[in-house]
C-alpha cells in the first residue's frame, strides 16, 4: 500500500488525478443530496411565503447582521425542544433564499420567536436593548425608525418567484402597496394583504404609528412572523403531555 503511494508520488499527473478523485468524494457527498432537494423536502400544505413587509424586514435582518448572533434553527436536542419548542424542519425554511439558520448563538434562537413578545417590546428592545433587558449585550438599532424603502420589493418578489417561492405576478405588482398596507390596519389595502397572504398574517402598526412605514415596521413584522408560516413542526413532532392528574 505504502509502496503503491510511493510510486504514485513519482508520477505527478497521476498524483494530481488521485487528489482530485479523493477530494471530490467529500464534495459529492455534500452536494449530491441537493440535486433531489425538491423531492426530499416536502412543502407543508399550510405553508405561506413571507409578505413583502416581512421580506423587507428579512433584508434588514441580514443588513444589520442579526444572523451573526441569532440562529434560526432549533436543533434536534431535548433541551432545545424544552426551551424553544419543536425542532426546526427543513421545510420550514424552504422559501428562504438564502437560509438564515446561523451557526452561532450569542443571543437566543429566533426560529419560533414570532408572537412570543409584543410589538412594543420589540420596538423598545431594538431601539435600546438595555431599556428592557438590563443585562443585554445586544447593540442598539435606533436608526430603524427611518422610513422604509419599498422600491425594490416588487423585483425581489419576482426574483424569489423564479427560485420557486409561490409569489404570483399579482403579488409582485402590488408588493410595495401591500407592504404599506400591512403596517396600517385601517388602510384600504389591508384586506388585500389578508386575501393574498392568508388570514393568519398580522396586519398591525408594528412600530406603533400607522401613519409611517418604517424599517422598524418591517423588522418587527418579520420577527413576529418567524415560526408562524406553518404549523408542520407542531403536528409532526408529537410529545405526550400529561392530560389528567393521576
Amino acid at each position, binding site marked *: 500500500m505504502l509502496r503503491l503511494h510511493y510510486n504514485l508520488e513519482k508520477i505527478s499527473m497521476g498524483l494530481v488525478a488521485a487528489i482530485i478523485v479523493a477530494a471530490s468524494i467529500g464534495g459529492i457527498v455534500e452536494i449530491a443530496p441537493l440535486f433531489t432537494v425538491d423531492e426530499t423536502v416536502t412543502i407543508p400544505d399550510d405553508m405561506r411565503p413571507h409578505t413583502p413587509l416581512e421580506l423587507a424586514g428579512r433584508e434588514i435582518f441580514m443588513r444589520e447582521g442579526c444572523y451573526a448572533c441569532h440562529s434560526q434553527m432549533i436543533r434536534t436536542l*431535548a433541551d432545545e425542544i424544552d426551551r424553544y419548542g419543536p425542532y426546526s424542519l427543513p421545510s420550514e425554511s424552504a422559501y428562504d433564499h438564502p437560509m438564515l439558520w446561523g451557526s452561532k448563538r450569542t443571543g437566543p434562537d429566533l426560529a419560533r420567536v414570532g408572537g*412570543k413578545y*409584543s410589538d412594543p417590546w420589540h420596538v423598545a428592545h431594538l431601539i435600546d436593548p438595555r431599556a428592557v433587558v*438590563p443585562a443585554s449585550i445586544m447593540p442598539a438599532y435606533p436608526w430603524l425608525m427611518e422610513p422604509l424603502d419599498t422600491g425594490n420589493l416588487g423585483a425581489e418578489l419576482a426574483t424569489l418567484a423564479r427560485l420557486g417561492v409561490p409569489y404570483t405576478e399579482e403579488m409582485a405588482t402590488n408588493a410595495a402597496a401591500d407592504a404599506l398596507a400591512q403596517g396600517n390596519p385601517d388602510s384600504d389595502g389591508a384586506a388585500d394583504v389578508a386575501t393574498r397572504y392568508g388570514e393568519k398574517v398580522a396586519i398591525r402598526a408594528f412600530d406603533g404609528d400607522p401613519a409611517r412605514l418604517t424599517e422598524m415596521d418591517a423588522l418587527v413584522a418579520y420577527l413576529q412572523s418567524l415560526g408562524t408560516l406553518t404549523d408542520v413542526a407542531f403536528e409532526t413532532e408529537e410529545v405526550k403531555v400529561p392530560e389528567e392528574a393521576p
Partner: protein
Amino acid sequence: MSAHDGEAPDVDPVTGYETTGHDWNGIKELNTPFPIFVITILGLTVVYSIIAWLLLPAWPTGRDYTRGLLGLDQGEMAVAGYQRLADGREDWMARFVAGDFDAIVADQALMAKAMPAAHRLFLDNCAACHGTDATGGPGFPDLADSDWLWGGDPATIAETLRVGINSPHPETRFAQMPAFGHDQMLERAEIETLTSYVQALSTGQADPDGEGGTLFADNCASCHGDGGVGGLGIGAPSLVDGHWIYGGDRATIFATLQRGRQGVMPTWADRLSEAEINLLAVYVSGLAAEHEALASR
C-alpha cells in the same frame, strides 16, 4: 543519480534507513519511513469510518440515504429525550394540569420542587418584558407588587397567560386606554386639566368637586372606578396607588391621555402547556408576598 531498477536500494549505514537514491555532490537524502504510530492511527480512522458507515446514517443515495444498522434518527432521539425530561417532571407536574391552586400552594413539598422550575420558565419566557426580578419596566407591569389589572389569584393569572391581553387569541382579554386627544374626544385644555387631576389623585390631593373631578367622573371613572381606585378587573389600573405602568410624570400622563395606550400581553396557549401555564400562575401570584418578605428582612 537515482537507483536503477533491479539494483539493491541504497541504505545509509548510520541510521539503517534507505536513501531516496538522489546524490547531490555526495549529499544523500534519507527516505525516513512514516512513524508506525501515524500509520496505525490512519488505519484506525479508516476502520472506524467503515464501522460508522455501517451503523449510522451515512451515504446519500439520490432520494434517500443509507439508514445504518442501528436505525438511529436524530429527530426521534431528540423527541424521545424531551419525552424523558417531561416524564421526569410528571410526578409533580401532573398536579398542575388539574389546576387545584389552593391544594398546590398548601403542599410545601410540591412547591419546593416546582418553584425552581417555575423560576426557570419565567426567565425563559416572561423576563424579557417583566424583568428578571419581575418588577417590570415602562409599559410592562410590575408583577412583584400587589396591584393587579385583571386579578392576582392563580386562576385569573393562568387565564391571562392563556388568552393574553389584546393578543391574537380569539378569547383574548381586551383593554384599551382611548386616545382622548388624538381622537378628539377631549380638548387640549381638558387633557391638561385631567393630567393635573390624575397626578393629584396619586398623591391624595385631588378635589373631586373641581373641574378635573367632573371631567374624570364623566370620562375615566367608568373604567378606572370612582376616584380612580381601579380594581374592577377590566384591565384599567388604579390611579391612586402611586404605581405607574408607563410613568407618572406629567409628560407621560399627558401622552397617555393624548394618544391612548393598548399594551399587549401575548397569548401563551400555543407555546406553553396547560400545566406550565398553571405552574407560572402559581409562581407569579406568589411574587408579591416573596418581595414583601425580602423587603421587610
